[in-house]
């Protein structure tokens, strides 16, 4: 069986223009962004794995206790109505982060970069008197005869929401960066979360990265084939549709294979588990501290007044 090689494959193409006009820098397009997104996902996971394996304070606490105390503190945070109290909770997370071998600059950046700032931008209009009525403390002139300015209620509300968002994220980050995700799942299971849900979540997380590789491959291959300027939007959208579609095909085929592998080892729909959780004294101490903090914080909030 011989092949006939088309002539254009044998001819040589025009190479790079010697004057260097080809290859101007252009805005990151959807291909680069998706590749970047995939890469940053992997980086975060690897970073989380590293920190979770560290020898810090929170890493040594039992995962179940961490989950429960975290949720308790989150609820307390959401009940607090005064900025100073919220700020105190937030500040308390910093030494805990340090004790758990998390670099503080990273911790602050991770929490503040993006969501609280984003929140601030969203909430900014709410500080104005025409959104949040009340006592104007920063007058900004008048508009059609009505006084306009920033109200104290608006400013207070903005401060509340920003600190609350920052504190909540800090608490969740403390949990996720100091607990291996497998232990986290096992903790949820141990705390009576439905077995199926935990099993599905674990398997989804495991195959997330496998499929992510497929996505990266598709997009890097696409990037390698992209010659010249930005892609036509229509073509770009067609590629996104095709790559997402191809990914689904792979995902579905994979689920068939996984199913066969599970059946082959006796799976009938009910899976047991081998959890190895043991409580230590330090877990009780930590739990006690968190409960104490939550109570103190809520009491302080109540005392400050309505």
């Amino acid at each position, binding site marked *: 069986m011989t092949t006939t090689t088309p002539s254009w494959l044998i001819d040589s193409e025009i190479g790079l223009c010697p004057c260097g006009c080809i290859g101007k820098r252009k805005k990151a397009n959807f291909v680069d962004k998706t590749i970047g997104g995939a890469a940053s996902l992997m980086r975060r996971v690897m970073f989380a794995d590293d920190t979770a394996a560290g020898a810090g304070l929170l890493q040594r606490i039992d995962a179940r206790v961490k989950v429960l105390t975290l949720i308790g503190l989150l609820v307390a945070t959401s009940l607090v109505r005064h900025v100073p109290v919220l700020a105190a909770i937030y500040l308390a997370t910093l030494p805990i982060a340090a004790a758990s071998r998390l670099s503080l600059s990273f911790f602050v950046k991770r929490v503040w970069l993006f969501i609280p700032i984003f929140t601030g931008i969203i909430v900014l209009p709410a500080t104005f008197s025409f959104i949040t009525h009340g006592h104007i403390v920063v007058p900004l002139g008048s508009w059609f005869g009505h006084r306009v300015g920033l109200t104290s209620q608006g400013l207070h509300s903005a401060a509340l929401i920003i600190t609350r968002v920052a504190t909540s994220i800090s608490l969740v980050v403390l949990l996720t960066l100091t607990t291996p995700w*497998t232990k986290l799942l096992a903790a949820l299971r141990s705390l009576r979360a439905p077995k199926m849900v935990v099993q599905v979540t674990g398997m989804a997380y*495991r195959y997330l990265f*496998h499929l992510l590789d497929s996505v990266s491959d598709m997009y890097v291959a696409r990037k390698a084939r992209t010659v010249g300027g930005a892609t036509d939007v229509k073509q770009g959208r067609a590629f996104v549709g095709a790559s997402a579609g191809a990914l689904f095909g792979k995902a579905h085929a994979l689920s068939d294979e996984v199913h066969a*592998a599970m*059946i*082959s080892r*006796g799976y009938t729909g009910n899976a047991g588990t*081998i959890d190895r959780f043991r409580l230590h004294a330090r877990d009780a101490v930590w739990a006690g501290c968190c409960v104490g903090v939550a109570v103190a914080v809520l009491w302080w909030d109540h005392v400050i007044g309505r």
Partner: protein
Amino acid sequence: MSSVAEHSAIAHHTTDELIVVENVSYSYLERFPALDDVSLTVRRGEKLALLGANGCGKSTLLKLLDGLVFPEAGRYHAFGTQVTEDNLEDEQFSRAFRSRIGFVFQNSDAQVFSPTVREEIAFGPLNMGMANDQIAQRVDDTLAMLDIADLADRAPFQLSGGQKKRVAIASVLVMNPEVLIFDEPTAALDPRTQQWLMELIVELNAAGKTIILATHDLSSLGQIADRCVVFSEEHRIVADGTPADIMADRQLLLSVNLIHDHSHVHLLEGPGGELQELTHSHDHLDGHHAHDHGGRQPL
């Protein structure tokens, strides 16, 4: 089962014939034929290799042997009892069957689906209903045997191909099956891991396990098989013999697309007296060649 079927089942089963496949046919989605009137018997302690080009049906036969697909025609008996979709609905039969046959899939990524290596290996015994402390012991033993104890708490997506293969094999071995099925075991493995795997297979067979594997890689055959069954591209079995006989039949190998015109298969006797293969290919300018075999004589 009818009394006639029962009778022939008992008549078929001697303690030695573990696997009996009779005239099975199977098509995917009722349209794409995969097996055409295939019959096969496997005895305890054999090392059987299924040979054939891609798509000839060997993988499908392996799946059939593991009770993952069921024949449209013909019958399959394992350990003396017929294996049907209905039978496997019975929990006791299913447990007994699945713990006695272990399947190592070609795609280790699909086989290693649990969050950690330890959980993966424990999956099989957990489904068999074993006690937790017994499971923990077995898992530790298997981890040690396959030299992956340091990977116990790692996630699968952090493992290399060779490591995943070890985990996949461990997850099957932990159930102590009598029959081990491998689908293209050496595919996508680096040479050192390939060698390790082949030695492991020989070792397991020496310990009494029956090995059935499917491969289209001829270069390791003498080591890991004492019997070869060849599939044609028409999804039928066309030959059944020792590796030496099969390798010597160049016409057969060409006709089933296992080798091409320019490839050569030499079966050599190695230093320890064991059969080794040398498969290679090169151009023929004059239809004839002669080259050095390193001092050894081709058979």
